[in-house]
């Protein structure tokens, strides 16, 4: 059974059909990439899955459950985490506090227990900190643990965002352009992390990415979209060989050069 089922998804903003009839399934343990030119609707698909946008049409199912009617704050609890293309962190907090915030839905203590700092709260807090330390070790963020986000370089902030998503303890992680703005070495790190997430953590990865070398390296399957519509789906090489995909990319390549 698929972990995520997207069926005939569409969202229209006024007359603009940002996403128009996109369907795909992501299997457990799969790395699935969505590619397409700028403005194709890739991030919009992410915002629909995260329930930030209301779909005009279509359904979303996660783990066999219809999530189309849920709110944005319900998604983390189900086990869906994400990063953003433009990095959305708590800028005036430390790296550690950002990651700890990822544990929010796992905290079961109430207001009174928190204020009194009861044994139950202490036990839970220790467990959350252990979990977060695992993430810090995995992403090699030790040097930045107590640093404020606002002063950190772009590449580090990008990794912190991946860390916060992992701290949520998700089944499915959505990565929105994890390699954009990164150096070749940093992109290679991201590729290794994605492979480890799948292999060691048993995660399913859905990503939007422009860097085709990263897509080729880590993805099992690729969906190409343009103008909100699906163009082709298959293995990375199948999709890149598709004439429609090539036409869409050549079109943007010319635009980008101009």
């Amino acid at each position: 059974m698929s972990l995520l089922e997207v069926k005939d998804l569409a969202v229209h903003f006024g007359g603009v059909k940002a996403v128009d009839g996109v369907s795909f399934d992501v299997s457990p343990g799969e790395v699935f990439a969505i590619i397409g030119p700028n403005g194709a609707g890739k991030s919009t698909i992410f915002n629909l899955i995260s329930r930030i946008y209301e779909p005009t049409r279509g359904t979303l199912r996660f783990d066999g459950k219809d999530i189309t009617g849920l709110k944005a704050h319900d998604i983390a609890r189900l086990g869906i985490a994400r990063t953003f293309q433009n990095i959305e962190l708590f800028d005036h907090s430390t790296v550690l506090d950002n990651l700890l915030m990822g544990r929010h839905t796992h905290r079961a203590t109430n207001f009174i227990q928190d204020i009194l700092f009861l044994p139950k709260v202490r036990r839970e807090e220790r467990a959350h900190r252990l979990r977060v330390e695992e993430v810090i070790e995995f992403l090699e963020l030790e040097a930045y643990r107590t640093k404020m986000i606002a002063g950190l370089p772009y590449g580090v902030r990008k990794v912190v965002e991946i860390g916060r998503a992992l701290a949520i303890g998700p089944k499915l992680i959505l990565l929105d352009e994890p390699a954009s703005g990164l150096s070749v070495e940093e992109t290679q790190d991201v590729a290794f992390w994605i492979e480890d997430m799948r292999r060691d953590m048993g995660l399913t990865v859905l990503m939007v990415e422009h860097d085709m070398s990263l897509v080729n390296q880590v993805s099992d399957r690729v969906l190409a979209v343009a103008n909100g519509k699906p163009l082709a789906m298959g293995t990375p090489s199948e999709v890149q060989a598709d004439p429609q995909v090539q036409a869409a990319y050549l079109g943007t390549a010319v635009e980008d050069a101009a």
Partner: protein
Amino acid sequence: MQEGRDCARAPLMELMQLVIGGLANGCIYGLVALGFVLIYKASEGVNFAQGDMMMLGAFIALGLGNADELGLPFGIAVIGAMAIMFVLSWGVERVVVRQIFGQPQFALVILTIAMGFVFRFVAGSIWGYSPLVLETPFAGQNLRAGGIVVGLADLVTIGVTILLTLGLWAFFAFTRIGLAAQAASQNQMAAYIVGVPVMRVNSLIWGLSGAVATVAGVLYATKGAIDPNIGLLGIKAFAAAVIGGLGSLPGALLGGLIIGVVEPIAGRYAPGELAKMSPYIIMLVVLVARPGGLFAQIQMKKV
């Protein structure tokens, strides 16, 4: 000889007296300023009805507690007023403020100015426009220490403000909800995706700010009569919040204390109406020297 010594001590004593009274006043400005900051963090805008919420809270406590009204014991009247103002402010967010979510900031400003008028007329039509006195257990009681006379009301004001500030600090630093509120105030999108129900948290913060405003109102009323126009004190408290940095709870309190202390000292030693202008002069000086306020959270440095 005796007389001479008293004369030498008098200016210092007088100054101490002014400072203590000023600190107590400053606590009230600070508490109202805390309300500004809470809502600024939750709704990304200024609630210009904050002073009127203080006024309404004081009147509700009066309505519950005074002998010729409901006549409840003072403590119960205050807690009751806090609870009523919590629910009222929570409801205002749910029903009114949430509707303008995503609109430019001035929409909230206009909305809350209008709300302030409504609160004033509601209080006026229930309790009238002539000054009323809230009956408190510590009215008119003074303590004397080394030649300084301190009103019990002033001491209570300072003590309650310290307790409330510590409570709010613990709430935001340690509780799951408080941390969620902090997260939402820093980045709503990020808060949503870690599972924080941002809208619900915002309503709660409005409720909290209503309860804090009520405490400020009751403390204000321990020092004198109240009428529906005392909410105009909110303008001074707004200056305090701006001095502190508008996004900072300790900054708001400090801003309140600065204004509270400078006002009576300027009134005693400075010429003319300088005392009345002093809060705004301080605000202007701070804004020119440190545009983000004393506790600026926004870093001006651009990479």
